[in-house]
């Protein structure tokens, strides 16, 4: 599936199984609503995966990686076997990463296949087999389902004048081997310098700044166990974005997004370091550019006050 021609992807991505994942029902609610609203505005259809479960996140993986593989495989099994879907779209980097990893393990590791078959049998549903569905990120969905030219034609409120640092986080591109479709030429995503979010927001009129920390670690895994390190990592990202001239940091992961927002507050409280750059999901920015109201895409739900910067650019 990694070699699927772009035109085929355009057709395939018009209607996809949607796996929001746990975070998008909690702290990432605005990412969920803005993804759905942008899909509607672009004419892309989402069918939520029925009775979906946690992908295993980071916690289960640390205890039993095979159980994590099973949990992710169950989501893909429902999409493939119950919904007859060809494509699963996961907007959360953690979910996306785990589904891709499960796909890879099931294709290459007999022990993972055996574990998934055994647990699936006990759970009473068909085991997922590698290759039954293609897992994509929300960035792939819009980039290939609509494309920059298609997006430009639909723009009603250009993001012109808005300087954006695009932050992808670490799980969208790592480890490389679970993303065989990446690094395959100009039309594909790059694992070392990802650009799909840059491409889409530029098509929406934004000015992307040169931001060398776009895939740098935000300390998400340490956020509870070692908050101070996480705060310092985030503060460095925020400072770099400001030094690059960004008004906002565009995000595409609920964990990264809330980490940047929470540690921005914490950096000011604990370290006395104030930064003013705002965080907005890329789907919120695209929604605004497509003429949706800030409320419709959940800007009011963000911790960081993105509304003020949108107002200052006449985008509300």
């Amino acid at each position, binding site marked *: 599936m990694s070699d699927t021609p772009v035109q085929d992807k355009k057709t395939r991505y018009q209607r996809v199984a949607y796996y929001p994942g746990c975070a998008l029902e909690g702290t990432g609610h605005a990412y969920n609503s803005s993804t759905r609203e942008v899909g509607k505005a672009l004419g892309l259809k989402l069918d939520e995966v029925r009775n979906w479960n946690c992908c295993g996140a980071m916690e289960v993986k640390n205890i039993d990686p095979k159980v994590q593989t099973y949990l992710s495989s169950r989501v893909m099994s429902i999409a493939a076997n119950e919904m007859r879907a060809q494509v699963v779209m996961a907007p959360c980097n953690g979910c996306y990463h785990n589904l891709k990893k499960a796909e890879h393990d099931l294709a290459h590791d007999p022990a993972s296949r055996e574990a998934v078959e055994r647990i699936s049998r006990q759970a009473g549903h068909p085991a997922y087999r590698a290759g039954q569905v293609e897992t994509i990120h929300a960035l792939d969905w819009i980039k290939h389902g609509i494309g920059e030219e298609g997006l430009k034609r639909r723009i009603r409120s250009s993001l012109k004048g808005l300087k954006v640092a695009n932050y992808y986080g*670490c799980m969208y591109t*790592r*480890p490389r081997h679970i993303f065989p479709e990446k690094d395959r030429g100009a039309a594909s995503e790059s694992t*070392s*310098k990802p650009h799909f979010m840059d491409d889409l927001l530029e098509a929406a009129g934004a000015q992307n700044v040169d931001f*060398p*920390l776009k*895939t*740098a*670690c935000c*300390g998400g895994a*340490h956020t509870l*166990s*070692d908050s*101070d*390190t*996480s705060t*310092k*990592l985030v503060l*460095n*990202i925020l*400072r*770099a974005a400001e*030094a*690059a001239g960004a008004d906002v940091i565009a995000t595409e992961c609920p964990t990264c997004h809330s980490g940047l927002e929470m540690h921005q507050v914490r950096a000011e409280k604990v370290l006395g370091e104030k930064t003013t750059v705002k965080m907005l999901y890329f789907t919120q920015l695209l929604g605004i550019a497509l003429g949706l109201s800030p409320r419709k895409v959940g800007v009011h739900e963000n911790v960081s006050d993105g509304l003020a910067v949108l107002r200052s650019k006449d985008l509300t």
Partner: protein
Amino acid sequence: MNSLAEIEARLEAFAPQPEPRAAAQALVAVAEQVLEHWVRARGEVPTGERKEGFRLLALQRQGARGVPSFNACRESCREIAYHYNLLNEEPDSALAAHRQRMMAMLAKHLLLFVSGKMQVDGLGEFCCASRPLRLE
């Protein structure tokens, strides 16, 4: 070799230098020292080899052997190398000061990442701001 705390303080106080090439050289050396801390803490001898012309990249590869999650700092190292090249190729650029600042921020990110990893892996209390997890 400077401690990680000393390196952090130095990077925190970094200001662009009038000679961009010298600044780039110094910042790469600092980043190498950070990775040397990680390699030594794992009981290995830091490599003197180069990858794509940079010892920094060879050290990163050495540090990631057996620890795939250490690759989360690979792109930061590559960006440091990229900024080094920019400063060397275009020392008179109007962006030279900005590039130095960015390079220092990248080096600081590498330091924070390595400090956090060392803490989590119980390799020592190298980051003065981190709580020693293993003692809690």
